């Protein structure tokens, strides 16, 4: 008999996920401190960026009730977690590296205010290109979807990234690259996520 316990079964987040994870989006205030889509404080080190995009379903329609979380390293390429033992890189006390955002109920647009992460060392000492980890849940998603966002201005690093290179199809690799845009009020990376169909985003079993 296998001595391992089985992981608890996943269930959809449902249409009212905002009540639990982002009550102000549901239309009320209940907690004193809320988890949100702004990862930076004035003390955070690194280049300020905004990430925005739309999640679409298999018909191309925006998913307006999606919840997206991101997890990323700081500007030095260090995760704010005791498991990151990379030498010579410091934790930034002004940066946890985690946030969550709800799409707009009308437009479907989600956004984060964060910083561009540094490169993190991957397995066997191979550097990974700067990237941000995404987790996507919504009504109709039975188990949270994992993907990664990479940066369009990191062409050389992306070409050597061990995870991007696992994706056999060149055409599908492009679904992970967010496009850098210089706006009047700062740098925006556009990252649209397609759950199904043409140009379906690459999702990972991690």
């Amino acid at each position, binding site marked *: 008999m296998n001595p391992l*316990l089985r992981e*608890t079964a996943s269930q959809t987040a449902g249409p009212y996920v905002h009540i639990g994870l982002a009550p102000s989006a549901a239309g009320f205030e209940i*907690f004193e401190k809320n988890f949100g889509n702004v990862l930076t404080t004035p003390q955070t080190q690194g280049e300020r960026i905004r990430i925005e995009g739309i999640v679409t379903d298999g018909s191309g329609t925006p998913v307006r009730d999606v919840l997206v979380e991101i*997890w990323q*390293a700081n500007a030095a390429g260090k995760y704010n977690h005791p498991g990151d033992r990379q030498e010579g890189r410091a934790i930034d006390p002004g940066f946890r590296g985690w946030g969550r955002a709800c799409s707009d*109920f009308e437009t479907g647009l989600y956004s984060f205010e964060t910083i561009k992460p540094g490169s993190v060392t991957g397995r066997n000492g191979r550097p990974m290109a700067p990237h941000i980890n995404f987790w996507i849940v919504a009504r109709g*998603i039975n188990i949270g979807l994992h993907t990664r966002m990479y940066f369009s201005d990191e062409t050389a690093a992306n070409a050597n990234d061990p995870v991007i290179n696992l994706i056999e199809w060149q055409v599908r690799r492009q679904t992970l690259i967010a496009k850098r845009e210089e706006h009047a009020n700062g740098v925006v990376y556009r990252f649209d996520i397609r759950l199904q169909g043409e140009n379906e985003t690459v999702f990972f079993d991690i």
Partner: protein
Amino acid sequence: MTRAPQPGDEFLMRDTTSHPPAHAPGYKTSVLRSPRNALISLQQSLSEVTAPVYSADEFGPLDNDLIKNGAKNGLPVGERLIVHGYVRDQFGRPVKNALVEVWQANASGRYRHKKDTYIGALDPNFGGCGRMLTDENGYYVFRTIKPGPYPWRNRVNDWRPSHIHYAISGDGWVQRLITQMYFEGDPLIPTCPILRSIPDEEQIRGLIALQDTGSFVQLDSRAYRFDIVLRGHRATLFENIVQGAAQ
């Protein structure tokens, strides 16, 4: 049992047979929201084995008391309950300092959400969400009222059994999990299309909380026990290849 894992060690590969498939036609919304391509399997790196860390000072004293945290001028209507249990990994080890977030409908089956238009009444004294961290033993507890069942647009006469939504964040990004807890004996359980999306009876039973008479508060509240298992955290043997040098 292997030696205890350290932060930054690997997690067990996910057993996909423990979960509903992304495409479960009985739950109609999943049809257009499920990827058609196979997931790309990754060996874990620091990006997958680390996760956000939370501290107790981010939480208010009523965050895990749903009977009081949404109350305006009295108590919410409904059956008073305590829900508690342990968050463990697949090796049975406690997952301490895990973030547990819960949300639910009120006793009428109505959610405090601007998109919920069900005729069931809102309760001015009930918000419907709570959150907490597990302790050193992986234990969590919250107080609430029993959520009501409600109809939903799937087939025209589908009703959700009473349930509480859970989101859990453990010690690694791979452990992130969203699920729902159900109540022992609910007659809507056998026909719920969302619950039936899980193709394994043992895994369905794992989502059904049992009444726990030993934890009742006399003349006050009943109790239910709901334990959660997250991905197993294992010691990385011989070479710490997740973040070590090339071999």
